[in-house]
């Protein structure tokens, strides 16, 4: 493979990467600098993102280009603009109107997502047959016991006494095994991110640099 000298982009990215890594030693001015650039750029990015991907194609172009058919887009336009009145203290209360519509809609959608999309199918997923051969039945039993005991552990209306005490304990054990799995996966996830950065530094920046300097 032809190795080209790192371009200006790679140099900038490598510098910022090293700045961020310097936080591991201790908080320092290079880290603060890189972080400030990042914060500024990310807010700028949001503006461009919203304008290019949503506001332009979904609002301005249809509204101003085809007002006859798309006049109803005035409603979300107004509701959107009203949101910003919260920065004018005297009119801040008006912005609550569109905030109310916004929150209301998502709350309604969320209710259905949770009940129809999670609780019903997850409950159904636990209704497993217990007559499907020894090993599959055993596996099904593990799932059923796990779900039931965890739900009982999270049951607050009666104290964990009598039969509930050992049941809730089993629930905790299931939770702990699951947290263990979670931990194992978290390690993999975090290490992946490090691999990504080191691969960039080594393969996109340092390696071409070394090859360039010593003629490969």
């Amino acid at each position, binding site marked *: 493979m032809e190795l080209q000298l790192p371009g200006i982009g790679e140099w900038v990215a490598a510098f910022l990467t090293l700045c961020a890594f310097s936080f591991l030693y201790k908080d320092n001015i290079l880290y603060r600098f890189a972080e400030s650039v990042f914060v500024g750029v990310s807010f700028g990015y949001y503006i461009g993102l919203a304008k290019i991907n949503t506001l332009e194609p979904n609002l301005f172009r249809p509204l101003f280009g085809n007002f006859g058919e798309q006049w109803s887009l005035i409603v979300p336009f107004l509701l959107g603009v009203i949101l910003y009145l919260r920065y004018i203290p005297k009119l801040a209360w008006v912005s609550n109107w569109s905030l109310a519509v916004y929150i209301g809609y998502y709350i309604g959608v969320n209710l259905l997502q949770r009940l129809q999309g999670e609780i019903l199918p997850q409950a159904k997923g636990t*209704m497993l047959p217990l007559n499907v051969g020894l090993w599959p039945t055993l596996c099904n039993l593990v799932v059923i016991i796990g779900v039931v005991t965890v739900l009982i552990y999270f049951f*607050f*209306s009666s104290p964990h006494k009598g039969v509930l005490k050992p049941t809730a304990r089993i629930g905790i054990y299931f939770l702990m095994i699951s947290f263990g799995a979670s931990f194992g996966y978290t390690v993999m996830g975090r290490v992946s991110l490090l691999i990504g950065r080191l691969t960039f530094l080594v393969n996109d920046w340092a390696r071409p640099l070394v090859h360039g300097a010593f003629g490969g």
Partner: protein
Amino acid sequence: MSANSISSGVVCPGGRGSGGNTAGIVRACTMRLNLSLACAILAGALLLAGAVVSEVIAAPRDFRLDLAVQDRPSDDGSSLILSWSTDPAVLTLPTGVVLEDDPQIFIERKTEGAVDFLEAGRTTISAGRFQDIELDSRESYVYRIGLQPATGGMVYSEVSMAASPKGNLFRTQRVNALVAVLMMGGLVIAYIMAARRGAKLFIRRISGLDQIKEAVGRATEMGRKILFVPGIVSVSEPQTLAALGILGYVAKLTAQYGTQLEVPNADPLTMASAREIVKQSYMEAGAPEAFHEDMVRYITQDQFAYAGSVSGIMVRDKPAAIFLLGWFAAESLLLSETGQSIGAIQIAGTAQVTQLPFFVAACDYTMLGEELFAASAYLSKDPLILGSIKGQDAMKIAILAAIVIGVVMATVGADGFVNWFTAL
């Protein structure tokens, strides 16, 4: 075509061809029959007339596909479902016409009165099914399928019976969700009302809560401070509110015992609320003079910088007890690790499941998920929180019961009960 039966505007193939969805079609037909009789007779008569007309138009056909049209059930009356036989035995082509494997087909549609067919879409013959959308429920439509043989030109199937899309009143397949919504709503509202009326609602003690007093006591004995971290997000997050509820309780204890308390914040709004709560608690405990604003400080909004400087506080001041309650992200492991290394009693709690492993491993007591909310309800006795926790509990019992019944049903092979939960 005479074998097809017409029932109030829907074409039902009389058991021929697409046998797989006959049950569905019959159900759709029965549903339609439930509509008012007058309407049915009128529409039936109209369509019978239409069928006669289309029979006349359909005359020049090249091959037969057993084309059937039906209304799409539980919709707003803007789509029809076209189905045809994918069985090669049914597909009788005119002599000389050769097709490639699974050829592309052109679905053509016209309103009944119109002269020309218009393309409605393309698919392949093996699909067996096509959904035509954005139709007008006041019109009735006929369909035919076109094929392009390799030899060129176009050959057409028979023309389907006429059908018009019908709007439905209720999506019958979502009745399970309706039951869930009504049940959940009813239970939560009922318990909140009961709590407001002052009904005594029992909630069990949460184990972490019992340890708070002990931790504060130990800090007092050792003469060291207590560090309370209320998560890193704003007060709009329920977990933050729950954490602040517990902060009120902790602050009251430290006021009584005369122990030092420090609350570093990552969010300015949370800081304002936390300061108010601590101040209030000190007044209620009769020690307003012991409160000073520096107890509740704002550090910085940045996740890692915040974690870094709170770890710094831990290492420098060596607090005897550390509370990590609320919404946490990746900084959970930094904070709990440092706390563990200085030997403090740590009480943690979050509903962020991915962060729980770190708390469980590094802290002495951890409130898992919902326990955080229950703990705050237990301490605050706020009827809103108390009532909704009871409502959730009641729903939990219903779900547990359903699961147990479902397991029995699945085992005896009665799948109807199980399948009801996700009827689509």
